[in-house]
């Protein structure tokens, strides 16, 4: 499942990660993956590969332990960086003993879905994503975590550290706004009229 997650809070991403959503983990780790902002070209390949290994392993650890994250105990970003740091230390120690070869990732296979169907679906997707982008972040977060993440309102209240009433209001406000946005001219979802 691919979708934009950049607007979500770290706490929300951890909640998604707890549901084994790889894309949420990827988003959480994106700033780490990007590597050092300057001088990355001068960094030796070995160092870069090691850094990537550390992130990969933190990625796995995060996936396994995300369900245990409790927002009251600290910020998600701190928790994640701690995990990455711990993995980095492990890897450097291991590397002192042996050298590892970097694996090249195979390129993503091309989809062979019929072109017109693909184009239509892409159009619908853009419309929905455009509408979602127009929502205030907190409303968008509540809706996306409920719909795409499968969380109940009570679970979200707990995971995001917000009162239940707040989550309910965000969800209601967000969905009502989404209805307006999707109902605007040029935003109709016309699957009934085209079928």
């Amino acid at each position, binding site marked *: 499942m691919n979708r934009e997650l950049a607007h979500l809070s770290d706490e929300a991403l951890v909640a998604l990660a707890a549901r084994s959503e790889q894309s949420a983990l990827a988003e959480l780790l994106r700033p780490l993956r990007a590597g050092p902002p300057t001088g990355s070209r001068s960094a030796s390949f070995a160092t870069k590969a090691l850094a990537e290994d550390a992130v990969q392993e933190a990625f796995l650890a995060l996936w396994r332990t995300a369900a245990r994250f409790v927002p009251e105990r600290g910020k998600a970003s701190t928790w994640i960086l701690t995990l990455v740091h711990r993995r980095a230390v492990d890897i450097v120690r291991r590397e002192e003993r042996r050298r590892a070869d970097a694996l090249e990732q195979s390129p993503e*296979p091309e989809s062979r879905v019929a072109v017109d169907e693909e184009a239509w679906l892409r159009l619908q997707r853009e419309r*929905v*994503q455009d509408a979602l982008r127009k929502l205030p972040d907190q409303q968008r977060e509540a809706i996306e975590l409920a719909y795409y993440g499968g969380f109940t*309102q009570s679970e979200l209240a707990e995971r995001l550290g917000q009162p239940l009433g707040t989550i309910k209001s965000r969800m209601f406000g967000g969905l009502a706004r989404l209805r307006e946005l999707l109902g605007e001219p040029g935003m109709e979802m016309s699957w009934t009229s085209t079928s």
Partner: protein
Amino acid sequence: MDVHELTAGYALDALHPEERETYEAHLAQCEPCRAELASLGETATTLAFGVTSPAPPERLR
């Protein structure tokens, strides 16, 4: 929290089982809520278009 405001949570299937029962009981007696649910439910369904499915693996094509 007004029971009417549970409509969005119900449309997104995000209610706790007990709340869902409460809401369904309310729905049977509340015409405005039924109309609102039909409308918000359509919006919620539209969200399914917001994601891409990953391409199937080569061996399955």
